[in-house]
């Protein structure tokens, strides 16, 4: 669309600008401020330069939680995106079942995150939970509070349960927007199901799928509440993801300097990776 140049448009943006600046800039400055200072707990602060940054970047603890975060984020992306597309492809396009499917599928998205964690905790308890009891009855030795593998399995299954629907809804929206004429043309050309998927459905879903990947990436990188309620980062530290570790340092141990430095590094990682996705997405839209 042709946009007119109008500097007065700033007035329209002003309320948003003020609110977000109040919420983002002031706290961010506080974080930056803490990240370069040392304190001995009596409200006196000393300049410490980049000490906390080098300390965090070299600490094994940070490397470990970053590594666990990467494993978590990439596993859930690898499961949720293909699964979401598969479900969207097989969903009915018309009829009375469509709203029923949509409402039921959107339900997990609207459950408060601590309830999601608590629900999965109850569901997976080895003695009285349906999943835990079921797995044990089938002969698996399952206990997510004691065994690392089981904790990871439950954590990933919970995220798949919670968020695959977002991918489904987005992919489905992309599919519904394809005009029938495309399919008729494909039929005349004698295209098979795979050819239709590859040359009609996939290109049409490209934009919404990029959005889905971007949203899932950002949100899974920030996941906190569900994971804490489910496993508390345990057993040991085996499921301590980045934000769990950060909250432990900031609000648990009250180490403001290291926590602030870690916040900034954490934010920059998300920002950098999201910027890559965003640029790719915009390039796709232009071409």
């Amino acid at each position, binding site marked *: *669309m*042709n946009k*007119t*140049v*109008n*500097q007065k*448009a*700033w007035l*329209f*943006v002003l*309320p*948003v600008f003020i*609110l*977000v600046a*109040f*919420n983002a800039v*002031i706290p961010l400055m*506080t*974080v930056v401020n803490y990240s370069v200072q040392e304190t001995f707990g009596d409200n006196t602060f000393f300049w410490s330069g980049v000490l906390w940054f080098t300390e965090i970047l070299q600490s094994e603890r940070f490397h470990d939680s970053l590594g666990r975060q990467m494993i978590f984020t990439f596993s859930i992306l690898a499961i949720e995106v293909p699964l979401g597309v*598969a479900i969207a*492809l*097989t*969903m*009915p396009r018309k009829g009375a079942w469509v709203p029923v499917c949509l*409402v*039921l*599928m959107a*339900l997990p998205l*609207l*459950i*408060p*995150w*601590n*309830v999601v964690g*608590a*629900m999965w905790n*109850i*569901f997976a308890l080895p*003695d009285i939970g*349906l*999943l835990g009891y079921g797995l044990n009855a089938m002969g698996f030795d399952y206990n997510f509070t004691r065994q690392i593998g089981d904790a990871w399995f439950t954590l990933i299954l919970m995220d798949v*349960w919670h968020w695959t629907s977002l991918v489904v809804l*987005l992919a489905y*929206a992309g599919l519904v927007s394809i005009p029938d004429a495309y399919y008729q043309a494909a039929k005349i050309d004698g295209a098979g199901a795979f050819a239709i998927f590859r040359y009609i459905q996939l290109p049409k879903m490209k934009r*919404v799928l990029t*959005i889905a990947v971007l949203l899932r990436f*950002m949100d899974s990188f*920030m996941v906190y*509440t569900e994971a804490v309620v489910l496993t508390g980062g345990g057993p040991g530290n085996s499921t301590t993801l*980045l*934000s769990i570790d*950060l*909250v432990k340092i*900031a*609000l648990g141990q009250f180490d403001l300097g290291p*926590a602030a430095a870690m*916040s900034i590094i954490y934010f920059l990682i*998300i*920002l950098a990776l*999201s910027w890559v996705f965003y640029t790719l997405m915009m390039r796709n839209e232009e071409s």
Partner: protein
Amino acid sequence: MKRTAIVPALYIVFLMLPIYWLVSMSFKTTNEILGGFSLYPRDFTLENYIVIFTDPVWYTGYLNSMAYVSLNTVLSVACALPAAYAFSRYRFIGDKHLFFWLLTNRMAPPAVFALPFFQLYSAVGLFDTHIAVALSHTLFNIPLAVWILEGFMSGVPKELDETAYVDGHSFWSFFLKIFIPTIAAGIGVACFFCFMFSWVELLLAKTLTAVEAKPIAATMTRTASTSGYELGLLAAAGTLTIVPGAFVIYFVRNYIAKGFALGRV
């Protein structure tokens, strides 16, 4: 129905299983829960729900959550409307940078902001009020609302604006009487997402409140840690948090798919 419909059907069964378990747990007595595995409540009881509806500690939690979520939704969408209009219609200095900067706030992990928010809102005297939580949630909801609304508005041809001006409408009369009804679906979708992300967020809501404005989710976590492990009560409280979400989805069910396709999210 086609044979492939088995895939979504299985998926929905998978989605419903944990929810069924939560709901069935909420109708069980504590003795039955701790006594061992049972597929459905044998000793059907409403005890847990009665506690929640009669004990002010519990039900005020719901009222508090509702209060700040509605406040946040209205605030986010009302501020985002003119901004999204500006982004979709005009070019101005710094527009692209501003848009990306807004989006970066959607990427900020709440864990990073928890402590500074606590200090900021204590300093301005808003700690433990609904306003504090509603304002803090605009951090991620305003960027999202701007993003969604801008997508919808860009789909409305500019000729609509021009015709209205020729017909003698002033800007505000055009904006309120013609433009807003035109993008009503978009506003619905934006409200839905603002409601959703404010309703499910806990970390900031919990950090910014103590007693007066404590959200239901925080009541649940505190009960879990203080009064032992009353699973039935927790399950009942959890079940009730699903209800408002289910209502909201039911109302926007026809817009969700359309909204996803037209808008950005």
